[in-house]
């Protein structure tokens, strides 16, 4: 590790093949992010990790690290952009933090707090999204889905099942389930699947678990998300890899 780039005035070392976000997190430097997961190849859809590279904006999770780059991240301009993007995600779905099992462990909520999202910002869309509770052990609350595709990717790339995919386009884009009925209960989805453990929000949750960890003792209760960069540093997959041969996961 000899080469470095400059992030907000201090050097960040990187290994060949790393993206700007991966290198920053490895070095314990936080750049806000949402659809990125330390065990998956970044795909860059949420755009919360946007930074300025040499004066031009780019998603840091997919931008290849190069020696000598000058990157601005912690500026009011960029954080204002991120705040707006987080507000957009809140406005797009139906997010009721006070009653959500994921509260305190939710990346979207944690980002909202950390970026200082204090108002709705936009008129909420209140989409009509039914809940799928057909599976004996897991349930999907589509109201909370932020379309990060982590479950899609995990199910195809790790579990080899392709339980999830995306349909629709634009604002009607939505998660679909791989069964004739379209219901989760008719798939081979299992609580042991990687896809059951990657949702950054509370869209995919185990059944019969409710507030087992009390509010106040959850991941983002003791320290804000920005103080937990190393937790998200890239790491090898924790589950055995048996990818689906017929497709390449998410978009």
């Amino acid at each position, binding site marked *: 590790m000899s080469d470095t780039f400059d992030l907000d005035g201090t050097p960040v070392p990187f290994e060949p093949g790393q993206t700007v976000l991966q290198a920053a997190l490895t070095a314990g430097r936080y750049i806000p992010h949402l659809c990125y997961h330390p065990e998956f190849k970044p795909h860059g859809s949420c*755009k919360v990790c*946007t930074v300025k590279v040499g004066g031009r904006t780019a998603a840091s999770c997919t931008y290849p690290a190069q020696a000598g780059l000058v990157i601005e991240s912690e500026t009011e301009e960029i954080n204002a952009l991120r705040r707006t993007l987080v507000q957009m995600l809140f406005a797009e779905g139906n997010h009721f933090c006070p009653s959500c099992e994921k509260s305190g462990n939710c990346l979207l909520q944690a980002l909202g707090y950390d970026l200082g999202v204090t108002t709705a910002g936009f008129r909420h869309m209140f989409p009509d999204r039914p809940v799928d509770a057909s599976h004996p052990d897991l349930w999907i609350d589509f109201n909370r889905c932020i*379309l990060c595709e982590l479950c899609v990717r995990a199910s195809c790339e790790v579990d080899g099942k392709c339980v999830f995919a995306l349909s629709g386009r*634009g604002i009607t884009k939505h998660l679909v389930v791989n069964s004739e009925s379209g219901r989760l209960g008719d798939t081979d989805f299992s609580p042991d699947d990687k896809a059951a453990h990657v949702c950054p929000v509370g869209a995919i949750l185990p059944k019969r678990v409710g507030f087992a960890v009390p509010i106040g003792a959850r991941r983002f209760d003791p320290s804000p998300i920005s103080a937990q960069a190393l937790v998200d540093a890239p790491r090898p997959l924790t589950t055995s890899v048996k990818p689906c041969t017929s497709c390449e996961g998410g978009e």
Partner: protein
Amino acid sequence: MDLETVLGRHPRRPESLLQVLRDIHEVHNHIPPGMAEQVAEALNVPLARVRGVIGFYSFLSETPQGEYRLLFSDNITDRMLGNQDLMQALCGKLWLEQGKVSEDGLVSVDATSCTGMCDQGPALLANGRAITRLNHQRINEIAELVRNHVPVAEWPAEFFQVDDNIRLSGILLDCTHMAGQALEAALDRGKDGVISELNQSGLRGRGGAGFPTGRKWAACKDAQSDERYVVCNADEGEPGTFKDRVLLTRHADLLFEGMTVCGLAVGAKQGFLYLRGEYRYLLEPLEEILAKRRAAGLLGNCIRGHDGFDFDIAIHLGAGAYVCGEESALIESLEGKRGIPRNRPPFPVTHGYLQKPTVVNNVETFCAAALVTLRGGDWYKGLGTAQSAGTKLLSVSGDCARPGIYEYPFGVTVRQVLEDCGAAGTLAVQVGGPSGICIGSHEFDRKLAFEDLATAGAFMIFDDTRDMFEVAHNFTDFFAHESCGFCTPCRVGTSMLKSIMTKVAEGHGTRHELNEVECLDKVLQQSAHCGLGHTACNPTLDMLKRFRPAFERRLKSLDFEPAFDLDGALAPARAMTGRDDARAHLHNETS
């Protein structure tokens, strides 16, 4: 026709998914129950992925769309020609609500994005076939034909007449190229010779971005790989553009020759023409030309007797997705997937179709490349301007006496074009379509060229009777409809822009909406994933910059007004009771 017949037409691999679904749709007007499952099994893709593809493309649907699916082209030029009235009239005659299938399952009527008939609109697609020059008489006839269950194939031929409307021609449109001529020239020049002539010519991509064609071909040729591909982007989806339609109609041989020359130059054996679904009617004539070329030894193995020069072209049809005009989304679509733009780099020249080096060029670019091969780079460079060599086809529509195709050397002024097409009292010109730029009369001396106004060719004219707010509103709706939904800013932002414009249009706008538009425009520009998102804010940006009064006069002088419309909330109740009289409405102060 059964599924096996459809499957038999295409290779049994995941890449065929979209083409198979299109074929099924053409027979049944939807994907019937159980069919998606069979397709998933036959092509070895997960069912959810099949559903994902069906859900992505506008023309595909799992629910029945009626025996007759009538889709009105809804570009602003169609609106200016009265398509809204005509659609209303047709819905009335067929006892229909827009967007819903009639109760007997016979017919549905809805709007679709521009179908590329702006010079002969208003237009519609009847089960995918283009009908032009709609008027009330034609609408009456269509309603009658539908009611009498006459198959679309038996409707009067004049409905489907599409004119070329060539008003001004130049080196490209006047070209009397004989099949094989450019190919002979290419074989004489050799691979490197072809590319060096292209470099010498200064030819740049005609899709709008203007990347030097010679450099693109060279990069593909030099990329390490065992296979390479040539792709022609005929997904002419930019509203207001229709010049590729005319090239495909009149100069397909030249186009295929350009593609074959490219195959020779870069070392590709397979080419694809990605034809937009709206031009479905061109498929058979194009296939015929391909067959002739094969018979003449201009496609296939050992072309012109040259050992190792193997190249063929397959046609893929789109299914109603503007974003597939973006080259990496187009490649995804060619691979049978949802048309989501890829992360770049890597670029298609190194990682394109099936991750192999791929040249993607516009129809016009391949035609021009064939001309350059035939007549040399120096000759081509002699036309146009310093940074924009050659000629450009413009698709002229809107308020003018002679809409149609005009070919000019680059550098022509907007004023000159307006004069030639007989435009009077022009207020504004939309150059390059909704993703381009809207200029006002003080800018009409600007030049159409990469140095000034870069354009893929759309040229929509608005005279002083037009409300530029309506134009921006139409374009904003278009982008919201066509956003692929991959990234947050475009998926949510275009939808928010659409609802803000609707709120303003309905008379509830305030300064707050103006601020929101400015905020959203900035977010889209800064963080959208692809060009569609970056340019989706252009209509509102241009309007606020150049035609601000058109927006401001619609605002109430309040700081904030809720978007909730009390009277509007009663609409379902009115629909259910069949009432629309004054007493069924809340008192409205503005009326």
